[in-house]
């Protein structure tokens, strides 16, 4: 059952169907009131803390675009100094704030092993500034700074693998999650907070505005990402793969791509080579995580 404490209250200014707002609510409700939240600059901070209002019913601090991990390191050290080691600390950011500009600080946090849960809400582009590509945008994504044009099929590079980066830092707990599997997401947050050390959960959060679809489709699109093998739900403890959500029938990636304006053009014949990159990635996921359910 979904744990609802309403620690991120309604009345904030996120867009209808915002995947990040839903994920952030699930995360904090799972973590509970004994939690301090540090958030990088981005949509989440903007829509939830516009002065003189705040949606946060837990202590919340936003400092800059790239320093949530370093601020959280200071908070954890301060709480250690005070002997208050029972308070949860979450350092969270969008994918740009996490995987690009904030990656150095998260690397420092993970390497030092602070007892902090890091959360990346990945909507695969800089959405707060109006949809520009990030290092975590997928190949072919049509964004403001990777537009489709006569000489361009969209974003030329594949997503940076944050999960592998976290694992390379020997984080004590590393997992992926999705808003379409809310109980799984909340269980992962609860489990991570029980484990000491640096933890990381990477959550795919579809963005109606940035991905170009009707708001009611957010949960469905997130579900398709899992069912196509694009976004495997996995869980590592101390570097060891412990759990994978198996899939009965892998759905075709075309179904996922066709629902979004940012990727519809990848179904055109001229972009077949780009589609192959996606299919190859999925194939590797299926093999690596043994995604197919065997009866």
């Amino acid at each position, binding site marked *: 059952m979904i744990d609802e404490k309403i620690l991120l209250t309604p009345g904030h200014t996120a867009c209808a169907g915002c995947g990040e707002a839903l994920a952030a609510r699930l995360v904090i409700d799972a973590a509970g009131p004994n939690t301090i939240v540090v958030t990088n600059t981005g949509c989440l901070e903007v829509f939830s803390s516009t002065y003189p209002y705040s949606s946060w019913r837990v202590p919340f601090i936003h400092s800059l675009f790239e*320093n949530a991990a370093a601020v959280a390191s200071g908070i954890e050290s*301060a709480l250690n100094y005070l002997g208050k080691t029972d308070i949860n600390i979450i350092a969270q950011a969008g994918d740009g704030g996490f995987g690009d500009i904030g990656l150095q600080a998260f690397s*420092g946090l993970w390497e030092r092993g602070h007892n902090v849960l890091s959360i990346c809400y990945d909507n695969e582009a800089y959405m707060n500034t109006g949809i520009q590509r990030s290092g975590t945008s997928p190949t072919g994504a049509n964004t403001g700074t990777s537009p489709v044009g006569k000489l361009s099929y969209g974003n030329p590079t594949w997503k940076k693998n944050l999960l592998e980066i976290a694992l390379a830092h020997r984080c004590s707990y590393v997992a992926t999650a999705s808003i379409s599997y809310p109980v799984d997401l909340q269980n992962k947050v609860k489990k991570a907070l029980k484990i000491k050390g640096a933890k990381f959960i990477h959550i795919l959060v579809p963005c109606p505005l940035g991905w170009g679809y009707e708001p009611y489709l957010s949960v469905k699109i997130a579900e398709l990402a899992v069912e196509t093998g694009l976004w495997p739900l996995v869980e590592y403890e101390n570097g060891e793969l412990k759990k994978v959500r198996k899939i009965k029938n892998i759905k075709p990636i075309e179904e996922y791509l066709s629902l979004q304006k940012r990727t519809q053009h990848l179904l055109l014949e001229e972009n077949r080579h780009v589609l192959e990159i996606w299919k190859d990635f999925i194939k590797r996921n299926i093999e690596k995580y043994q995604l197919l359910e065997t009866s």
Partner: protein
Amino acid sequence: MKQFLEGATSIAKTVALCRPGVIAAYPITPQTHIVEELSAIVANGELKAEMVNVESEHSAASCILGAVATGVRAFSSTSSQGLLLMAEVVFNIAGLRLPVVMCCVNRAVSAPINIWNDQQDIMTLRDAGVVLFFAESIQEACDLHIQAFKLAEDPAIMLPVIINIDGFVLSHGYEAVEFPSQEMVDKFLPPYNPPFKLDPQNPLTFGALVGPEWYLETRYAIHKTMLDEVPNKIKQIAEEFTKMFGRTSYGLYEKYKLDDAENIFVSFGSVAGPIKDVVDSLRERNEKVGLLRIITYRPFPQEIGDILLKAKKIIVLEKDISLGATGALYSDVITSLYISAHRNKVSCLPKILGYVCGLGGRDISLEEIEDLYRKEDLVESEFVGLKKENLGSFI
């Protein structure tokens, strides 16, 4: 009892007496000895604190921001490029009204890369909303650290403070330094207990997005605190310090042989030492000369103009330059003088000579300082000690 110690070691020992709970360390020359010594103090169990070996100065400033927001006193120190990397965090700390205290061991800014002393680095943060102290000696640097925590954490202030010390001259120089006892420092500096902090028992939001309808007032509030509250508090704390520790602390500025002075040097930092020697030597020859040494550079003391208005000639000597304009102190002195003249209905301003010296660690001699005193031509920011033969490579 006095101890003959290196500047960086002395500062680290003094900071330890102030009992920070979190220290963020990142190496950069010439600051490194401070965090090394603090690491040793913590490793030896002489101070209970969390040492955080961060991965950059940006994270060092962010780390102590987080610690202070959680209600724990924190410290870090840096130099030059490190300070520039911290810059956006320091602006942020001031805006969040967090009483962070740091030491900046002043060093030239790259390029060309140069590890030696000048005061260009800190001028980057002149407008950040941070209180800036400049020390002349190692003893003063130590004393200012103790006062800085008390000032920053005062509920009426709640702003960051940076103590500036000249790289190598003070950080690596040796001096006989008086250290107060732990009991005395504890009495002077009570534990940090802020009214607002990150605490699940009382959940508050820090760092909200503020639109045009509120932002202007947040900036005015810092400015008003800087102008109205900080100077009085600095004077009060300096008096309290002098009384408790039996060592004079000047607070905003030091008036050195100014009573009948017609010609006044204005400067800050360790170069004040040689200037005092020159003043003494000129005084022996019956010259009416003195030094106005700025200790608190931000907020800029409003009396500076009034003090200088009586002079015939003012010689500003500083180790920084706003390239394409003038030295920073020079422009502050002129502004202050003009405002003072206007207030006092004085129409005749003293002659002002502006000099830039010591960039990138170039030495300035007593003879050169005395030469400046002899000059009469108005100059805005003339470079002292330029080697014409070197210029051919660059112009």
